[in-house]
C-alpha cells in the first residue's frame, strides 16, 4: 500500500488517480500510524512553503517524515513536497525540514533565454536530464518532458544529491535522490506516460539507489 501524505497542501487526488490507473493500491491520509504501515510514502503538495510547514508542524507529520526517510522506507517528494524537505525556502523565508542540505530559491526576476524574457512561474513542459542508472528513472525516454509549475527551485548545497537537471534561463536541480529518497520538482502525475513510468518504478522500488 502506497501512503500519500495529506497535510492540507492542495488537492492530492490527482496523485491517487494516477496510481489507481497503474493498479497500485493507495490511501490519502494524515494518520501517521496508517502511514507507518505503508510500504512507500508519497509526499506531494502545491501552494506556499510557509503554510505547508505550519501544517506539517501542527500535525506532527514533520517528525514522522524525517523518521520514514531515516528508516529506509521509499519516499517520493513531489513539487512543494520536494521543496520543504530542504533546509530552508526563500518563499516567506521559511525554515523547512532539513532532510536535504540546501535552500529553495526564487527564480531571478530578469530570467532570460537569449533575447527573450522568461515568465515566472515556470509553467509547462520541460526536459529533465536524469542521473543515469537510478531505478526510479529507468525506462524514461531521453527526450521525455515533464509538467512543471513553480516559481522557486531547489538548490542542494551538495550537488551529489542532484539526480536531474532542467534548463529555464538557468540550469536548476529538478530532481534529487539519495538512498531511499527521491524528490522531483515536476508533477509526474500530470506528465503523461513518462510520469506514469516514474510512478510505476517508484511503487516497485525497494529503496536502494544502486542499480
Amino acid at each position, binding site marked *: 500500500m502506497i501512503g500519500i501524505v495529506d497535510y492540507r497542501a492542495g*488537492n492530492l487526488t490527482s496523485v491517487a488517480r494516477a496510481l489507481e490507473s497503474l493498479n497500485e493500491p493507495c490511501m490519502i491520509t494524515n494518520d501517521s500510524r496508517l502511514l507507518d504501515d505503508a510500504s512507500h510514502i508519497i509526499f506531494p503538495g502545491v501552494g506556499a512553503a510557509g503554510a505547508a510547514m505550519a501544517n506539517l508542524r501542527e500535525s506532527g507529520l514533520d517528525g514522522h517524515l524525517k523518521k520514514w526517510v531515516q528508516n529506509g522506507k521509499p519516499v517520493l517528494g513531489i513539487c512543494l513536497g520536494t521543496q520543504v524537505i530542504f533546509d530552508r525556502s526563500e518563499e516567506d523565508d521559511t525554515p523547512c525540514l532539513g532532510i536535504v542540505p540546501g535552500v529553495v530559491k526564487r527564480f531571478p526576476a530578469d530570467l532570460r533565454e537569449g533575447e527573450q524574457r522568461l515568465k515566472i512561474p515556470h509553467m*509547462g*513542459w520541460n526536459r529533465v536530464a536524469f542521473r543515469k542508472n537510478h531505478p526510479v528513472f529507468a525506462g524514461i*525516454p531521453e527526450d521525455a518532458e515533464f509538467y512543471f509549475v513553480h516559481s522557486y527551485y531547489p538548490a542542494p548545497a551538495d550537488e551529489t544529491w542532484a539526480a536531474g537537471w532542467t534548463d529555464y534561463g538557468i540550469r536548476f536541480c529538478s530532481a534529487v535522490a539519495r538512498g531511499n529518497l527521491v524528490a522531483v520538482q515536476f508533477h509526474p502525475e*500530470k506528465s503523461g506516460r513518462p510520469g506514469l513510468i516514474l510512478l510505476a518504478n517508484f511503487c516497485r522500488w525497494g529503496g536502494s539507489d544502486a542499480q
Partner: protein
Amino acid sequence: MLSKRIIPCLDVRDGRLTKGIKFKENVDIGDPVQAARAYYEQGADEIVFYDITASAEARAIMLDVVKRVAETIFIPFSVGGGIRTVDDMRQVILAGAEKVSVNSEAVKNPGVIRDGARAFGSQCIVLGMDVKKVLASREIPSGYEMVIHGGRTFTGLDALRWAKEAERLGAGEICLNSIDADGTRDGYELDLTALISSHVGIPVIASGGAGKPEHLLDVLTRGKADAALIASMVHYRTHTIPEIKNFLHDHGVKTRLQW
C-alpha cells in the same frame, strides 16, 4: 527550455461536446471524456473545457464529466464557464481539474481572482478574456475592449489594463480570446496577443482563429504566445496534433514530441 503548449478546447453543453462556430451554431460532436482521452493520446499538452450552459443542473453533470476526465487523462486540464465563487472553484478542483478559468464573472467581480488565488494558489486561476478591437480612445487606450456574454456586451474596460490588473490580483495565466478572430479560421489576432503577452509576466494562451498549423506558428512566434488553443481544426480532423507539433518543430518552435 519550455515547450510551447498546444491545447485543444472542448465546449461542453449538458455533458456533451459541442463546437461553437462564431459562438452561435453549435454542433454536437460527442462524449467529452472520450475526446479528452483521444487528445491525451495524440499528445495534447493540456485540455481546456468550457461549460457553455452552466445552469445548476448542468453544473452537476459537468462535475461528473470532470471526475471522469481526471480518471482518464494524466495531463493538466482546466474548466471554465459559469464559475462565480470560490466555492464553485473548489468543487471543480476537488473533482480533479488543475485549473479553473473565470471570465465574465471576474469582470463583474474582480475579487474572485484574488480570493481564488489565496485559496488554491495562482497556478490554479486562469483569467479568460474575450476581447474586441475598437477605436482607441481615452477610455480604451489600447484599442482593445473587454466584452462579456460571448461578445454581446461591451464593458468599457480596456483589455490591456484588465490583463495587468488581473495579474496583480493573482491570476496565474491568461487565456486570451479574440472575438473578431474566433470561428474565422483565418488566424489568431497577432497584434492583440503580442500586446498582452509582452506586458504581463504570466503565461498567455492565444485563442480564436486557428485554422491551419501556420497560424499556430505565427502566434507562438510573432504573437509571443506561450500556448495556443485549438478547436475545430482538430475536432473536424482537418489537422491532427502530431501534425501540428511536427510542423512547429520543423519551423524552430520547441514542442513536446515524446509522450
